C-alpha cells in the first residue's frame, strides 16, 4: 500500500469512527438483542416497574415496540415505589418466578444482592456484546450503580438528580436586584450558589413581592425530605458515620445546622410547606407561586411545557413560567443523585435470557435516547450521548441549558447512602424529619436518630456494616471532594 493510499484509508476510518461507526455500534447492541430474542417469540416476560407515569414507557412505548420486533410480549407489573423492595424480596423468597426483569433503586443493590435476589449479568453482557456500550453510560452512574462485589447486577437506566430551578425573570428583575443590593450590600446572585445566599435571596423575594411569589419552596414531606437532608448535610460538611467506630455522626453540627436552617426557611416559604411532596411543590412552581425550587429533572421539562399536552399529564398544572426558568446546581454545588432506577434480572426468573435481552435493548444507546425523551415516562438522561443529543436539545428553547445542568449534576452528584439495610437508617431519618415539623428540638431529634442508627448498626454487625460503608464511602461521589 502506498503512503498516500494508507493515509486516505486511515482518514476514511477515522472519519467513519467519528461519524458513522459509533452509530453502527449503537445500533448493534439493540439489534443484537432483537435478533437473539427472536428465538423466544411467542413467550411473555414480566417486568416490575414503578406504578404510574414511569410505567407508561413499557406500556405504551417500549413494550409494544419490543413485541413487534421480537414477538415477545412484555407484561408490566406496576408496583408503587414504596412497595417495590418488599415485593421483589417477597417474590424472591417465594421463588415463584413471577418477575423476570426488575426496576430497582440502586441504593437497594447491597441488600438485594446479599439476599440473592439479583442475577449477575456479566455472562450475558459478554455473550451479547454489551460491555462496550455500557461504558458510554455517564461515569457517576456506571461506576456506582452497576456493580457490586466486582460483578454487574444492574444497568443504570435513569439519571435522577436534584437540580435547582429558578425564575430568571424574577431573580433577573433589575428592581429586585437593586433592592437586594441595597439591603444586603452585594449583587443578587443568579443563581445562588451557597445556602446562605439562597436563604437571603429567598427570604428577600418573599418579603419584596409580598409572597407573590414566595422566594422558594421544597419537598418537606419526610420521604422526599430525607433526600434533601442527605444532600445538604454532606454539602455542609457532614459525614454519616465515623469510619473507625461506625458510630453515627448525623447529629453533628452540620446536621443540626440543616435542621435549624430548614425551620428558618419555613418562615418565608408557603404555609404548610412541611407537608409538601412532589406534586404540591411542582404545582406551586409551575403556577408561578414560587421563585426557586429543587427537584428531579421532570420539573424542568414540564416547566417548559414539554409534553404537558398529553393526556397522561393532564394533572400537571399548565406551566405559567415557560421560557422563564433557569437550571443550575443546588447551593453547595453537589446535587443528590436521589433514587433513580436501574434494570436488574430476577434470580428466580425462568426466562432469564429473554428478560436480559429486553433489558439490553431498553438500555441501549439507540432505544434509551428515545425513552429519555418521552415526556410522560420520567426516565432522565443517563448516557453521555443523551446530554449532547441534537434531537433532545431541539425539544424546547432552553433544553440545551437544561441538559447541560443535568450533565453537570451527573459529574458532581452525590450518591444516596447505600449500605446494608439502608432503609432502616432512612426510616429513622424520615421519622426525625416528621418530628422536626412537629416542633421538637433539632439537636434532640438528631441525637435520637443517631442512637437509633447505632442500634441498627449493632444489630446488623459493626464489622459487616463498616465494610459496606467503607465500600460505599470509597466512591468519589459519596462525599463532596
Amino acid at each position, binding site marked *: 500500500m502506498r503512503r498516500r493510499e494508507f493515509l486516505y484509508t486511515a482518514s476514511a476510518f477515522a472519519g467513519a469512527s467519528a461519524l458513522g461507526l459509533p452509530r453502527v455500534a449503537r445500533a448493534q447492541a439493540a439489534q443484537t438483542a432483537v435478533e437473539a430474542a427472536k428465538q423466544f417469540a411467542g413467550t411473555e416476560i414480566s417486568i416490575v416497574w414503578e406504578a404510574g407515569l414511569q410505567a407508561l414507557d413499557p406500556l405504551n412505548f417500549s413494550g409494544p415496540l419490543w413485541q413487534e420486533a421480537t414477538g415477545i410480549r412484555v407484561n408490566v407489573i406496576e408496583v408503587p415505589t414504596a412497595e417495590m*423492595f*418488599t415485593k421483589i*424480596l*417477597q417474590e424472591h423468597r417465594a421463588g415463584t418466578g413471577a418477575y423476570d426483569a426488575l426496576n430497582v433503586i440502586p441504593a437497594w443493590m447491597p*441488600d438485594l444482592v*446479599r*439476599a440473592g435476589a439479583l442475577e449477575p449479568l456479566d455472562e450475558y453482557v459478554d455473550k451479547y456484546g454489551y460491555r462496550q456500550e455500557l461504558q458510554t453510560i455517564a461515569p457517576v452512574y456506571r461506576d456506582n450503580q452497576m456493580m457490586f462485589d466486582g460483578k454487574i447486577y444492574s444497568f443504570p437506566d435513569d439519571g435522577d438528580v436534584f437540580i435547582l430551578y429558578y425564575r430568571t425573570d424574577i431573580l433577573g428583575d433589575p428592581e429586585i436586584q437593586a433592592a437586594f443590593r441595597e439591603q444586603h450590600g452585594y449583587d443578587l446572585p443568579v443563581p445562588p450558589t451557597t445556602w446562605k445566599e439562597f436563604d437571603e435571596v429567598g427570604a428577600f423575594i418573599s418579603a419584596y413581592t409580598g409572597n407573590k411569589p414566595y422566594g422558594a419552596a421544597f419537598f418537606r414531606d*419526610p420521604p422526599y425530605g430525607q433526600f434533601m437532608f442527605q444532600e445538604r448535610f454532606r454539602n455542609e460538611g457532614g459525614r454519616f458515620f465515623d469510619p473507625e467506630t461506625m458510630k453515627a455522626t448525623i447529629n453533628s453540627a452540620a446536621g443540626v445546622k440543616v435542621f435549624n436552617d430548614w425551620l428558618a426557611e419555613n418562615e418565608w416559604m*408557603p*404555609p*404548610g410547606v*412541611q*407537608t*409538601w411532596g412532589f406534586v*404540591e411543590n411542582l*404545582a*406551586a412552581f409551575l403556577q408561578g407561586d414560587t421563585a426557586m425550587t429543587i427537584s428531579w429533572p421532570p420539573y424542568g421539562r414540564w416547566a417548559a411545557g414539554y409534553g404537558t399536552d398529553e393526556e397522561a399529564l393532564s394533572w400537571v398544572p399548565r406551566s405559567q413560567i415557560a421560557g422563564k426558568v433557569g437550571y443550575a446546581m443546588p447551593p453547595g454545588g453537589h446535587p443528590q443523585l436521589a433514587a433513580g432506577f436501574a434494570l436488574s434480572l430476577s434470580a428466580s426468573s425462568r426466562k432469564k435470557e429473554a428478560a436480559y435481552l429486553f433489558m439490553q435493548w431498553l438500555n441501549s444507546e439507540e432505544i434509551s435516547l428515545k425513552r429519555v425523551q418521552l415526556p410522560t415516562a420520567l426516565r432522565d438522561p443517563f448516557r453521555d450521548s443523551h446530554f449532547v443529543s441534537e434531537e433532545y436539545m431541539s425539544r424546547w428553547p432552553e433544553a440545551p441549558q437544561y441538559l447541560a445542568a443535568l450533565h453537570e449534576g451527573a459529574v458532581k452528584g452525590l450518591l444516596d447512602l447505600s449500605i*446494608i*439495610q439502608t*432503609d*432502616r437508617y432512612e*426510616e429513622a431519618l424520615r*421519622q*426525625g424529619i*416528621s*418530628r422536626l*415539623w*412537629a*416542633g*421538637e428540638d433539632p439537636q434532640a431529634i438528631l441525637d435520637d436518630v443517631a442512637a437509633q442508627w447505632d442500634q441498627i448498626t449493632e444489630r*446488623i454487625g459493626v464489622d459487616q456494616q463498616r465494610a459496606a460503608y467503607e465500600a460505599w464511602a470509597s466512591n468519589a461521589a459519596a462525599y463532596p471532594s
Partner: protein
Amino acid sequence: MTDRGAMRGFSDGRRTGAAGARATPFVDRNFKYLMIFPAVAVILFIGLFPVIHTLMISVQNLTMLDEDTSFHGLVHYGRLLSDGRFWEAIGHTLIFVVVALPTELVLGLALAYLFLDRLPGKQVFVALLVLPVVVSPVIAGATWRLLFDQRYGPINQVIGWFAGEDVTILWTVDPAFVYPAILIAEIWQWTPFMFLLLLAALSNVDQSQLEAAEIDGASFWRTFFKVVLPAIWPVMAIAVLIRALDLFRLFDVVWALTRGGPGTLTETFSIYAYVQGFQQFETSYTAAMSLVVIILLAITVTLVLRRMEIDR
C-alpha cells in the same frame, strides 16, 4: 315430624342397609363427629395452621439477610419486652379504641333513634348514611388527607372563613391535630356501621313494652336503660366487639393520613408490625409480636364476652 321421621329412616337404613352392614360400632358411635370432621378440619387448617406456623417462625431467626431456621428460643419475645416502640404502638392503638369506639357507639345509637320513626325520604337518607362503610378505608384515608391538605383542602378554608383570616393547621403534622384528624376520619367511616346494626336492633324492640313503660309514666332515660338497652344489648355487644377488634388492627386510615407520624406518635400496632415485617423483614420478630398480640386479644375478648354475658 316429617324431618324426624326422615332422620329416623336414614338412621335405620344406615343400620340395616347394605352400607349399614359394613358399619362398625366405632362409626356408629361417632357418626356425628365423622360428619362434621371435614368442616372442622378445614376450619382448623385455616385458623390454626397460620398460628402454629407463626409460632414456629417466632422461635427461629428469619430476617432480611438471614434465613436461619434453627431454634432460637424465646429471644424475640425477650426483645419485645424491652421494645419501647412496640408498647407505645399498643398504647396508641388503645387510644384509638378508647376514643373512637364510644363515640361511634353513641353517635350510631343517636342516629338510629333519629331514624326509628317514619320520616319522609328515610330510606334514601339511610342509604346515604351507609355510604362511608362501603368505601375502602385506604381510599377514605387518602380522601381525608386531601380534605385536610393545607394548600388545596377545603377544611382549613372553611375554618378560615369563620376565623376571618387564613389559617394554617397542619392536620397531619401538628401533634395537637393528628389524633383528631385520624379520629374524625375513622368515626366518619364507621359510625354508620354502628348505626345500621343498632337501627335493626331498635326496630325489633317489643313495642308493647315501650307502650307499657309510657303508660306507667317512665321517663325517656328510664325507658332506655330498663327496656330498650336490655333488648338491644346482644346486638350492641356484638357490634362493639366487632368494632373494637377492627380498631385494634387499625392501619389504613392512619397510614394514609400520617404513616404513623409525626415520628411514631400515631403508630398503631398494625403499622409497627407492617414496618417490621414487610419493610425491614424482621420476620421472626414480627411473628413473636403478632403472637403476643393474638394472645392478649384472645384473653381480652374472652373476658369481655363473659362480662357482656353474650356467650350464653
